[in-house]
Protein backbone atom coordinates (compact mmCIF):
# COMPACT_ATOMS: atom_id res chain seq x y z
CA UNK A 1 0.00 0.00 0.00
CA UNK A 2 1.37 3.43 -0.94
CA UNK A 3 1.00 5.89 1.91
CA UNK A 4 2.32 9.36 2.66
CA UNK A 5 3.59 10.19 6.13
CA UNK A 6 3.47 13.83 7.19
CA UNK A 7 7.06 13.57 8.39
CA UNK A 8 9.89 12.29 6.24
CA UNK A 9 10.77 8.65 6.90
CA UNK A 10 14.20 7.64 8.16
CA UNK A 11 16.26 5.53 5.77
CA UNK A 12 19.53 5.17 7.67
CA UNK A 13 21.75 7.10 10.05
CA UNK A 14 25.35 8.24 9.73
CA UNK A 15 26.35 8.75 13.35
CA UNK A 16 24.01 11.38 14.77
CA UNK A 17 22.82 12.42 11.28
CA UNK A 18 19.53 10.77 10.33
CA UNK A 19 19.12 10.53 6.57
CA UNK A 20 15.48 10.73 5.46
CA UNK A 21 13.95 10.06 2.06
CA UNK A 22 13.20 13.78 1.61
CA UNK A 23 16.88 14.53 2.17
CA UNK A 24 17.68 12.07 -0.63
CA UNK A 25 15.19 13.95 -2.86
CA UNK A 26 16.82 17.30 -2.03
CA UNK A 27 20.29 15.85 -2.63
CA UNK A 28 19.25 14.42 -6.00
CA UNK A 29 17.81 17.80 -7.04
CA UNK A 30 21.11 19.47 -6.08
CA UNK A 31 23.14 16.90 -8.04
CA UNK A 32 20.92 17.28 -11.12
CA UNK A 33 21.27 21.08 -11.00
CA UNK A 34 25.04 20.94 -10.51
CA UNK A 35 25.52 18.47 -13.37
CA UNK A 36 23.21 20.51 -15.63
CA UNK A 37 25.07 23.71 -14.76
CA UNK A 38 28.41 22.07 -15.55
CA UNK A 39 27.12 20.61 -18.80
CA UNK A 40 25.51 23.82 -20.03
CA UNK A 41 28.39 26.10 -19.12
CA UNK A 42 30.74 23.86 -21.13
CA UNK A 43 28.49 23.63 -24.17
CA UNK A 44 26.88 27.06 -24.22
CA UNK A 45 27.87 29.49 -26.94
CA UNK A 46 27.36 33.20 -27.56
CA UNK A 47 25.08 32.28 -30.44
CA UNK A 48 22.73 29.82 -28.72
CA UNK A 49 21.75 26.55 -30.32
CA UNK A 50 18.12 25.48 -30.38
CA UNK A 51 18.56 23.32 -27.25
CA UNK A 52 20.36 26.10 -25.41
CA UNK A 53 17.58 28.54 -26.33
CA UNK A 54 14.94 26.20 -24.91
CA UNK A 55 16.89 25.80 -21.66
CA UNK A 56 17.54 29.54 -21.41
CA UNK A 57 13.90 30.47 -22.02
CA UNK A 58 12.60 30.08 -18.41
CA UNK A 59 15.80 31.61 -17.02
CA UNK A 60 15.49 34.59 -19.38
CA UNK A 61 11.84 34.95 -18.40
CA UNK A 62 12.55 35.04 -14.67
CA UNK A 63 15.58 37.27 -15.17
CA UNK A 64 13.28 39.65 -17.09
CA UNK A 65 10.81 39.62 -14.19
CA UNK A 66 13.58 40.33 -11.66
CA UNK A 67 14.97 43.08 -13.91
CA UNK A 68 11.51 44.61 -14.33
CA UNK A 69 10.50 44.64 -10.67
CA UNK A 70 13.75 44.42 -8.72
CA UNK A 71 14.90 48.02 -9.17
CA UNK A 72 18.44 49.11 -9.96
CA UNK A 73 20.06 46.55 -7.66
CA UNK A 74 18.44 43.60 -9.42
CA UNK A 75 21.80 42.16 -10.48
CA UNK A 76 22.81 41.66 -6.83
CA UNK A 77 19.99 39.29 -6.00
CA UNK A 78 18.99 37.86 -9.41
CA UNK A 79 21.32 34.80 -9.01
CA UNK A 80 19.79 33.99 -5.62
CA UNK A 81 16.22 34.25 -6.94
CA UNK A 82 17.05 32.15 -10.02
CA UNK A 83 18.77 29.53 -7.84
CA UNK A 84 15.77 29.29 -5.51
CA UNK A 85 13.41 28.99 -8.48
CA UNK A 86 15.42 26.27 -10.23
CA UNK A 87 16.02 24.33 -7.02
CA UNK A 88 12.37 24.27 -5.98
CA UNK A 89 11.29 23.52 -9.55
CA UNK A 90 13.68 20.58 -9.97
CA UNK A 91 12.82 19.24 -6.49
CA UNK A 92 9.09 19.46 -7.27
CA UNK A 93 9.30 17.87 -10.72
CA UNK A 94 11.70 15.19 -9.53
CA UNK A 95 8.95 13.83 -7.29
CA UNK A 96 6.81 13.12 -10.38
CA UNK A 97 9.31 10.74 -11.96
CA UNK A 98 8.38 7.05 -11.99
CA UNK A 99 9.73 5.27 -8.94
CA UNK A 100 9.97 8.35 -6.75
CA UNK A 101 7.63 7.86 -3.81
CA UNK A 102 6.62 4.38 -4.95
CA UNK A 103 9.75 2.19 -4.80
CA UNK A 104 11.05 1.50 -1.34
CA UNK A 105 11.30 -0.88 1.56
CA UNK A 106 8.23 -2.80 2.70
CA UNK A 107 7.61 -2.28 6.39
CA UNK A 108 5.10 -3.97 8.67
CA UNK A 109 3.22 -1.39 10.72
CA UNK A 110 1.16 -4.14 12.33
CA UNK A 111 0.47 -7.79 11.51
CA UNK A 112 -2.04 -7.00 8.75
CA UNK A 113 -0.69 -3.84 7.11
CA UNK A 114 2.47 -3.51 5.08
CA UNK A 115 3.49 -0.04 3.91
CA UNK A 116 6.18 1.06 1.52
CA UNK A 117 8.81 3.46 2.83
CA UNK A 118 10.04 5.07 -0.39
CA UNK A 119 13.75 5.58 -1.01
CA UNK A 120 13.13 9.02 -2.51
CA UNK A 121 10.38 11.44 -1.63
CA UNK A 122 9.55 14.99 -2.78
CA UNK A 123 11.94 17.29 -0.90
CA UNK A 124 9.31 19.98 -0.37
CA UNK A 125 6.92 17.44 1.20
CA UNK A 126 9.10 17.81 4.30
CA UNK A 127 8.68 20.99 6.34
CA UNK A 128 12.40 21.02 7.21
CA UNK A 129 13.29 21.62 3.55
CA UNK A 130 10.78 24.42 2.99
CA UNK A 131 11.59 26.04 6.35
CA UNK A 132 15.30 25.93 5.47
CA UNK A 133 14.65 27.63 2.15
CA UNK A 134 12.38 30.21 3.81
CA UNK A 135 15.12 30.95 6.37
CA UNK A 136 17.64 31.45 3.54
CA UNK A 137 15.20 33.89 1.96
CA UNK A 138 14.59 35.59 5.35
CA UNK A 139 18.30 35.99 6.10
CA UNK A 140 18.86 37.27 2.55
CA UNK A 141 16.32 40.05 2.77
CA UNK A 142 17.57 41.05 6.21
CA UNK A 143 21.12 41.10 4.79
CA UNK A 144 20.04 43.25 1.84
CA UNK A 145 18.15 45.55 4.24
CA UNK A 146 21.24 45.85 6.44
CA UNK A 147 23.45 46.48 3.44
CA UNK A 148 21.17 49.22 2.16
CA UNK A 149 20.27 50.72 5.54
CA UNK A 150 23.22 50.00 7.84
CA UNK A 151 22.84 48.40 11.28
CA UNK A 152 21.58 51.54 12.96
CA UNK A 153 19.13 52.44 10.22
CA UNK A 154 17.81 48.89 9.96
CA UNK A 155 17.28 48.46 13.71
CA UNK A 156 15.72 51.92 13.92
CA UNK A 157 13.31 51.04 11.14
CA UNK A 158 12.51 47.66 12.76
CA UNK A 159 12.21 48.68 16.40
CA UNK A 160 11.26 52.36 16.52
CA UNK A 161 7.85 53.34 15.22
CA UNK A 162 6.78 56.62 13.74
CA UNK A 163 5.65 58.55 15.87
CA UNK A 164 8.01 57.23 18.61
CA UNK A 165 5.35 57.10 21.36
CA UNK A 166 3.62 54.31 19.39
CA UNK A 167 6.73 52.10 19.65
CA UNK A 168 5.47 49.81 22.50
CA UNK A 169 2.40 48.92 20.42
CA UNK A 170 3.81 48.93 16.89
CA UNK A 171 7.13 47.15 17.47
CA UNK A 172 5.57 43.78 18.50
CA UNK A 173 3.14 44.13 15.59
CA UNK A 174 6.04 44.76 13.21
CA UNK A 175 7.98 41.77 14.59
CA UNK A 176 4.96 39.44 14.25
CA UNK A 177 4.45 40.66 10.69
CA UNK A 178 8.11 40.02 9.82
CA UNK A 179 8.02 36.55 11.38
CA UNK A 180 4.85 35.67 9.49
CA UNK A 181 6.81 35.93 6.23
CA UNK A 182 9.00 32.94 7.07
CA UNK A 183 6.08 30.79 8.18
CA UNK A 184 3.97 31.84 5.19
CA UNK A 185 6.74 31.00 2.70
CA UNK A 186 7.51 27.61 4.21
CA UNK A 187 3.95 26.48 4.96
CA UNK A 188 2.63 27.37 1.49
CA UNK A 189 5.25 25.32 -0.35
CA UNK A 190 5.05 22.43 2.11
CA UNK A 191 1.23 22.42 2.08
CA UNK A 192 0.95 22.42 -1.69
CA UNK A 193 3.57 19.75 -2.34
CA UNK A 194 2.43 17.51 0.51
CA UNK A 195 -1.19 17.82 -0.61
CA UNK A 196 -0.07 16.88 -4.13
CA UNK A 197 1.69 13.77 -2.79
CA UNK A 198 -1.41 12.71 -0.85
CA UNK A 199 -3.62 13.36 -3.88
CA UNK A 200 -1.46 11.25 -6.18
CA UNK A 201 -1.22 8.42 -3.65
CA UNK A 202 -5.00 8.48 -3.17
CA UNK A 203 -5.70 8.47 -6.90
CA UNK A 204 -3.28 5.58 -7.43
CA UNK A 205 -4.89 3.58 -4.62
CA UNK A 206 -8.40 4.25 -5.91
CA UNK A 207 -7.69 3.32 -9.50
CA UNK A 208 -5.20 0.46 -9.12
CA UNK A 209 -8.03 -2.04 -8.63
CA UNK A 210 -9.48 -1.14 -12.05
CA UNK A 211 -6.28 -1.76 -13.98
CA UNK A 212 -7.54 -4.99 -15.55
CA UNK A 213 -11.02 -3.64 -16.32
CA UNK A 214 -10.65 -0.09 -17.51
CA UNK A 215 -7.66 2.09 -18.41
CA UNK A 216 -8.60 4.36 -15.49
CA UNK A 217 -5.48 3.37 -13.57
CA UNK A 218 -3.41 5.09 -16.25
CA UNK A 219 -5.65 7.98 -17.23
CA UNK A 220 -6.73 9.42 -13.88
CA UNK A 221 -3.29 9.52 -12.18
CA UNK A 222 -1.92 10.87 -15.48
CA UNK A 223 -4.29 13.83 -15.32
CA UNK A 224 -3.26 14.59 -11.75
CA UNK A 225 0.43 14.23 -12.56
CA UNK A 226 -0.12 16.81 -15.31
CA UNK A 227 -1.72 19.13 -12.75
CA UNK A 228 1.16 18.53 -10.35
CA UNK A 229 3.60 19.57 -13.09
CA UNK A 230 1.75 22.88 -13.30
CA UNK A 231 1.50 23.32 -9.51
CA UNK A 232 5.21 22.52 -9.12
CA UNK A 233 6.06 25.31 -11.57
CA UNK A 234 3.63 27.79 -9.98
CA UNK A 235 4.88 27.10 -6.45
CA UNK A 236 8.51 27.48 -7.50
CA UNK A 237 7.64 30.75 -9.20
CA UNK A 238 5.65 32.03 -6.21
CA UNK A 239 8.44 31.18 -3.77
CA UNK A 240 11.05 32.91 -5.94
CA UNK A 241 8.89 35.97 -6.67
CA UNK A 242 7.97 36.44 -3.01
CA UNK A 243 11.62 36.21 -1.99
CA UNK A 244 12.35 38.85 -4.61
CA UNK A 245 9.49 41.05 -3.37
CA UNK A 246 10.78 40.88 0.21
CA UNK A 247 14.32 41.80 -0.87
CA UNK A 248 13.01 44.63 -3.05
CA UNK A 249 10.94 45.89 -0.11
CA UNK A 250 13.97 45.80 2.21
CA UNK A 251 15.93 47.91 -0.28
CA UNK A 252 12.97 50.18 -1.06
CA UNK A 253 12.53 50.99 2.65
CA UNK A 254 16.08 52.29 2.55
CA UNK A 255 15.26 54.46 -0.42
CA UNK A 256 12.31 56.03 1.39
CA UNK A 257 14.45 56.40 4.50
CA UNK A 258 17.28 57.91 2.48
CA UNK A 259 14.99 60.35 0.71
CA UNK A 260 13.95 61.78 4.08
CA UNK A 261 17.38 62.09 5.68
CA UNK A 262 19.77 62.16 2.69
CA UNK A 263 22.65 60.48 4.57
CA UNK A 264 24.82 60.40 1.46
CA UNK A 265 24.50 64.11 0.96
CA UNK A 266 22.39 63.77 -2.18
CA UNK A 267 19.76 66.29 -3.05
CA UNK A 268 16.16 65.16 -2.46
CA UNK A 269 15.71 64.73 -6.23
CA UNK A 270 18.82 62.53 -6.50
CA UNK A 271 17.90 60.54 -3.44
CA UNK A 272 14.39 59.74 -4.64
CA UNK A 273 15.36 59.08 -8.26
CA UNK A 274 16.09 55.33 -7.83
CA UNK A 275 12.71 54.80 -6.19
CA UNK A 276 10.97 56.22 -9.23
CA UNK A 277 13.23 54.28 -11.55
CA UNK A 278 12.31 51.03 -9.85
CA UNK A 279 8.61 51.36 -10.53
Amino acid sequence: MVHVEIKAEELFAIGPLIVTNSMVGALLASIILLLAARWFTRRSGIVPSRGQSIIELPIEFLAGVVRGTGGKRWRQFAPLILAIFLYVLVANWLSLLPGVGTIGLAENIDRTHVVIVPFVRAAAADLNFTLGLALISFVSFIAFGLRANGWRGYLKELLIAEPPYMTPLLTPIHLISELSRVISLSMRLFGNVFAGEVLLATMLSLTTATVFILPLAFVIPGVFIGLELLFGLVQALVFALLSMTYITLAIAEHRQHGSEEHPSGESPEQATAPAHGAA
Partner: protein
Amino acid sequence: MGPDQGDDKGAPPPNWGVAFDLGLRLGISVILGVGGGLLLDSWLHTSPIFTLVGMVLGIGAAMYTIWDVAKESMRR
Protein backbone atom coordinates in the same frame (compact mmCIF):
# COMPACT_ATOMS: atom_id res chain seq x y z
CA MET B 1 21.25 37.54 -19.09
CA GLY B 2 21.53 40.55 -21.26
CA PRO B 3 22.69 43.99 -20.27
CA ASP B 4 20.44 46.25 -18.24
CA GLN B 5 18.75 48.08 -21.09
CA GLY B 6 15.97 49.70 -19.17
CA ASP B 7 13.09 48.30 -17.24
CA ASP B 8 10.61 48.21 -20.10
CA LYS B 9 12.24 45.16 -21.75
CA GLY B 10 11.26 42.74 -19.01
CA ALA B 11 7.68 43.81 -18.40
CA PRO B 12 6.73 43.38 -14.72
CA PRO B 13 4.06 40.73 -14.31
CA PRO B 14 0.88 41.26 -12.33
CA ASN B 15 2.01 40.96 -8.72
CA TRP B 16 0.04 37.80 -7.99
CA GLY B 17 2.79 36.43 -5.77
CA VAL B 18 1.84 39.08 -3.22
CA ALA B 19 -1.82 38.06 -3.47
CA PHE B 20 -0.83 34.44 -2.74
CA ASP B 21 1.15 35.67 0.25
CA LEU B 22 -1.28 38.14 1.78
CA GLY B 23 -4.10 35.76 2.68
CA LEU B 24 -1.80 33.30 4.39
CA ARG B 25 0.08 35.98 6.30
CA LEU B 26 -3.16 37.41 7.73
CA GLY B 27 -4.01 34.05 9.31
CA ILE B 28 -0.45 33.35 10.44
CA SER B 29 -0.18 36.76 12.15
CA VAL B 30 -3.26 36.08 14.28
CA ILE B 31 -2.09 32.51 15.06
CA LEU B 32 1.36 33.79 16.08
CA GLY B 33 -0.15 36.45 18.35
CA VAL B 34 -2.64 34.12 20.03
CA GLY B 35 -0.09 31.27 20.25
CA GLY B 36 2.51 33.53 21.84
CA GLY B 37 -0.11 34.83 24.29
CA LEU B 38 -1.19 31.29 25.23
CA LEU B 39 2.42 30.27 25.83
CA LEU B 40 3.11 33.31 28.01
CA ASP B 41 -0.11 32.70 29.97
CA SER B 42 0.73 29.06 30.61
CA TRP B 43 4.24 30.04 31.68
CA LEU B 44 3.31 32.98 33.91
CA HIS B 45 -0.14 31.67 35.04
CA THR B 46 -1.82 34.90 34.00
CA SER B 47 -4.58 33.49 31.78
CA PRO B 48 -6.24 35.09 29.84
CA ILE B 49 -4.39 38.42 29.88
CA PHE B 50 -1.55 37.65 27.44
CA THR B 51 -3.86 35.60 25.21
CA LEU B 52 -6.06 38.68 24.76
CA VAL B 53 -3.05 40.96 24.31
CA GLY B 54 -1.58 38.48 21.78
CA MET B 55 -4.87 38.35 19.91
CA VAL B 56 -5.00 42.15 19.67
CA LEU B 57 -1.36 42.26 18.53
CA GLY B 58 -1.97 39.44 16.01
CA ILE B 59 -4.98 41.20 14.51
CA GLY B 60 -2.97 44.43 14.53
CA ALA B 61 -0.12 42.65 12.72
CA ALA B 62 -2.59 41.36 10.12
CA MET B 63 -3.88 44.89 9.54
CA TYR B 64 -0.32 46.20 9.42
CA THR B 65 0.50 43.59 6.76
CA ILE B 66 -2.42 44.80 4.61
CA TRP B 67 -1.30 48.40 5.07
CA ASP B 68 2.31 47.49 4.24
CA VAL B 69 1.32 45.70 1.02
CA ALA B 70 -1.07 48.51 0.01
CA LYS B 71 1.62 51.13 0.68
CA GLU B 72 4.10 49.24 -1.50
CA SER B 73 1.53 48.84 -4.28
CA MET B 74 0.79 52.58 -4.23
CA ARG B 75 4.50 53.37 -4.28
CA ARG B 76 4.83 51.39 -7.50
